[in-house]
């Protein structure tokens, strides 16, 4: 078993095709927006160093995925070890909003996470910059759904207009860090139990 020496926060972005997953990732990681992003095939990732609560440093690894359904079978390979899952819909696309729940379920089925009930998700309603008349998902409906799925944090964002993206990813990073620590603690508990049996309760010297 390889122990992680660096603090890696693995974040997966899921959602229907064309909702802006790639744009959100690029806006967050390099603060850029381009009309030239092509459809994602398989999975791509970018990394960004993050500092939380003033002193905690970690590397956030954002994995961007393909939106077309046929690529979901690859999920098993890409979701493994995720610390947070970002579910994205497009505020001008009702179908993409309705599919949020199935993206979450799909993630839980394939990611093989230790405790599905407490695994952190964050929902992003993207393309907030478009004119009001084109928006079909109301804030109310979005809040209701986020609540019904277990009080998932919800952010309305615009990768193009750079609205709320940093705030959302700060929350994502916090959630991911928490999850990553919880996993590490659980692992350490198991590990310590094993040691306790052998060494008859000798206190662990590792306080890292």
């Amino acid at each position, binding site marked *: 078993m390889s122990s992680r020496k660096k603090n*890696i926060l693995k974040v997966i972005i899921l959602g229907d095709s064309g909702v802006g997953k790639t744009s959100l990732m690029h806006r967050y990681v390099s603060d850029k927006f381009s009309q030239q*992003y*092509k459809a994602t*095939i398989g999975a791509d990732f970018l990394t960004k160093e993050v500092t939380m609560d003033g002193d905690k440093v970690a590397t956030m690894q954002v994995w961007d995925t393909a939106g077309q359904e046929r*690529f979901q079978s*690859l999920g098993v390979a890409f979701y*493994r070890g995720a610390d947070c899952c970002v579910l994205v819909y497009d505020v001008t696309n009702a179908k993409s909003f309705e599919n949020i729940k199935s993206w979450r379920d799909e993630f839980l*089925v394939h990611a*093989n996470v230790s405790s599905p009930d407490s695994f952190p998700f964050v929902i992003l309603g993207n393309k907030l910059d478009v004119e009001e008349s084109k928006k079909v998902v109301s804030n109310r409906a979005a809040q209701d759904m986020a609540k019904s799925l277990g009080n998932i944090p919800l952010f309305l964002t615009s990768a193009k207009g750079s609205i709320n993206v940093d705030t959302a990813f700060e929350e994502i990073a916090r959630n991911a860090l928490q999850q990553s620590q919880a996993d590490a603690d659980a692992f350490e508990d198991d590990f310590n139990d094993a040691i306790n049996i052998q060494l008859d309760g000798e206190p662990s010297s590792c306080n890292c």
Partner: protein
Amino acid sequence: MVSDRYSVLVNDHEFLGESVLDEKSVLYFREDERLTLKSQNISSAMVQDSLDGLVALGKSKDGFVKHALRRPVWLKILKSRLSIDANNVSESEKGLSEFVTHKDEHQVSLDVKRSFGDIKDDVAKSFLRQALEQTITKVLRRFPQLNYYQGYHDVVAVFVLVFMHTHKADEEAELSDSTSGTPSTDGSDYHETLSSSSISTKLADDSVLFIDSDQLFESVMIFTLLYLRDFMMSSLAFTIDQLVLIPLIVKDKDPRFYRTFQLNEIDPFFALSSVLTLFSHDLRPQSNESLSIVFQIFDLVISSNSMMVPLTVYSNLLLAKKDDLLTRLKDNLDNFENDTDLIHGVIQQEMIVGSSVQLWNEVLETTRIANSSSFPNAKKTVNKYSVLLTASHVPTTIDQALSWLAKETRLNEMRSSLESVNNKAKTPSPAISRWRLIARSAGPNLIKMSLFIGVAAILMKLYLRSLEGHQVYPQIALKSYLDQLKSLKFSGLNQSRRIWLDPLKNLLKNIGRPSRS
């Protein structure tokens, strides 16, 4: 070459490559002469109607050199592989199918909207997008059994760029979009005839873009049916079967690298976008670069009639970048959550982005020399009707191609339903999913293995029984064992008809006893 500074000036003669003159003019002239000569050879092979000549030229350095040549040559070679009987689809049928929308058209339009992003001229961009969407939609409506995949649009976009040509309104002669900058000096240049199916658009400077949409459609249709079927099933299973060949090719050539780079350990999903799009996703082809690698890869696939080409190119690229990959692997050991992420990440960072044109040319040269049209292991890994195996039955007919497609579709459905049964039975643990993947990638082998185990069990049982009778003298036991084996071939003859109740038990009932002789 991948860089941000592309300025695609489809409305300008400048893109013919004159800028190259300033810097490396000596090299340029030598290369120019070579390309001119090759263009002449291709043209005369066209005029002489020499398919073998064309195929040989396509397989050699620089491929078919320029789009003006690619258009007629690709079409000619593809049509020689798959004959389209115009009467095959009746007019009424054709007309009907064109109005029935395909289930994936929404996805197509989403992906088309994000295509040709590098083209600066808005009129040209929307013209290209329109041609792209029309072509894909027409193929899907004609063959509704095909499933569209993200990446198919990248492949078709390459054809759109090749079949597009520019034409100055005040010029009589057609503008050649070669890189050579010396259009029409080669006297034997093959001249295209424009059919009535041309679509065109006028740009701000009065130059006109043309695409012969019938020729474009025909080429894309044949290419799809011959080479992309595996990717257009309802699931990715047959695509993954192809990907699995990459580690095997690498293993053949460099077992040590194969092990150090853990290619035996992880799923080769890292190659997915490259293989699905024949590198057109990652290499972002430019209309003004006829010699860019991606067009040459298509030249090679078409002339060698083999979808082993992308797999071999990918493997050769891995091997060419071996040292860089291993260095980056070492540097990043702590930076990833698990080995799959590590390998995927290292390859993503190193392979496509970090590969120079020179390296790409070397990789293509290696691929050309090795004549990679077949790989013995392919038979064990892919399905019987895979594009990797049916290519040897070319030239063929559209009916035959459609029958392969139907058979593949059925096999794929069978596999999908098998998997969903497995999935229902148990939520996959990583170990099980890995096993399933192995099973998927080595289907026929697995059947062979279970047969082997079955036969071994019978033999073992016989052997144990013969031991029972002759515990003291093992040699005798062995002899009686052999006797029993001999009697095995007559067993079953005297069996009751209800052998199916427990065939094995019945089979062993008599012959398993110590020999009575």
